[in-house]
């Protein structure tokens, strides 16, 4: 379905592109939000990416690769949003009630805060690698391809970013253990 719509859109069919955009928009939004952690910035990035994709669509050689191609454009749109707008206000979200200290692999409020803080300390490029790897579940070689960076760079970014994220959780675990002992 994608390929047919891409072909039509490539010939200037705005209706086809609109349909295409609605098929891939939610996933783009999910990716952009996770990179930027701000819904407004993410919407702007997706909008920019879709318009850019329309403008450059004729350069796409293989219609089947529309979505990976779009994700690369989206990633760069996220970079631009992050660099040009420095408002990193914390997003307001509804957090489900749960225990402060999880006993399994459920995310707790503390975990989320620690990971939020760790993520915000990472560069936007490192975040993008994390999102494509952890959220989309892509192997690192495909992450490199999709973002358009060398494999070594992708590995390096993932290594550094994952370590930072894990370290934030481990630091939290140490703090919690200490507090529990003191109590």
């Amino acid at each position: 379905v994608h390929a047919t719509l891409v072909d039509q859109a490539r010939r200037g069919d705005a209706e086809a592109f609109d349909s295409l955009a609605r098929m891939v928009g939610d996933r783009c939004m999910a990716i952009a939000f996770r990179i930027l952690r701000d819904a407004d910035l993410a919407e702007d990035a997706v909008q920019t990416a879709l318009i850019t994709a329309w403008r450059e669509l004729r350069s796409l050689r293989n219609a089947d690769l529309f979505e990976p191609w779009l994700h690369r454009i989206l990633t760069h749109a996220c970079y631009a949003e992050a660099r040009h707008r420095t408002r990193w206000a914390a997003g307001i979200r509804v957090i489900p009630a749960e225990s402060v200290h999880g006993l399994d692999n459920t995310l707790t409020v503390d975990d989320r805060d620690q990971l939020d803080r760790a993520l915000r300390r990472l560069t936007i490029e490192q975040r993008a690698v994390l999102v494509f790897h952890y959220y989309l579940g892509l192997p690192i070689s495909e992450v490199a391809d999709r973002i358009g960076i060398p494999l070594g760079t992708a590995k390096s970014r993932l290594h550094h970013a994952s370590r930072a994220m894990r370290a934030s959780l481990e630091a939290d675990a140490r703090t919690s253990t200490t507090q529990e002992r003191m109590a």
Partner: protein
Amino acid sequence: MTASRDPDRLIHAYFEEGVNELPDPVYDAVRARIEQTRQRADLGPWRTPTMRNLSNPLKIALAAAAGALVVIVGLGALHTGPGPGASPSATASASASASAPSSAFDGLVNAFLTARVAGDGAEQYLDAGNTTADGIPLLYATTSGARYERAEFEQVLGKAWPYGWTAFKVRLFAGDTVVEQLFFAGPDSSGLNYQVDGFGTEIPPTSENGQPVATSFVYFGGSVTFKAAHPWILSAPNTYPTPEGRLIPEGPDVPPTTDGGQRHEGWDRLYLIADPELGGAGCGRGPLSGDAAALAQSLRSNPDLGATAPLAVTVGGQQALVMDLVIPAGTSISVAANEGGDLCADGLLNAVTGGSMAYASGIATSQATGEKIRLYLFDVPAGLSMRIMAVVVVAPEARFQRAVDEAAPVIDSIEFHVP
């Protein structure tokens, strides 16, 4: 929280949360914009640039007006204006400007260059997002400090610039010295854009009398500095555990580096690695060997690595050991990996690992690409957080000599800084 919880699962769970729906008004806005946006003709595979989402037409209009005035009064910068493939003219003239094809940004470039010749106020014509750490090199004077006397520019439309970006090569003259720089502008730009890596094109971002001007880089928290110039592109300093340089390819069979998304593939590389690992389970272990000589000997004695005997050399006033390694393509090699199966960032052989990867117990097994490694091993001064630093140059045999030659001035400029 219990210590037994799996951090990777928690990170996965963290990324599962969040907004998953694009609101309808965004689709409507996109639809409205594309109705008014013409698709670009397919001139070739595009690269993906850093996009700007800025809009300041007033500023551009004002700059254009200022530029028009500059042309009229004949000051400073003038557009020499040859189109794609045209030869640049060293002599600017009002008549050349009048007859040459012009872009919407001519006024902006004129105003920018006029300010540079005047020695003040050029920054106002730069894109608001153009916040490069080192700014624009040689903005108002040459390396020797000579002030610019005149300037000219040409549009380099011969390049397949994507996303409506226009590129300009500007030329500033100070006596016998000519400084050339590459700038970009797009439909949404608020000014001219300079990229430290020049977007990785064949044109150096800055050159002086034809020689690319080197940029200084600081890595490993200030412990290591060096300089690199076009055709190298370096990763952002202090961002990644293994700084990486990529060599812009050359040759008649090489597509222009202004081409599309695959432009990074197959580029030769240079890495700086602190306390390099070779293999073994897990990441984050200590150095493989106590010093460079021991590491070199260990590499040399491993029959799988095809290592030459280490040779003591002096590079940039510092002692190092140099040796070549080559593992035949397709050879199964094992290197250390983290718990997710990704190669350790400080793995010496990561650079020559390709294809699919099998992971088990901290070991990742893959196939050698067959590329050649030139390895420099430095014993770093005491007081730094590392004991050995490796410089790794990677290229296939056919391009190896070029990569090594291009890497030489970079390696020569390496300096260690003890706090």
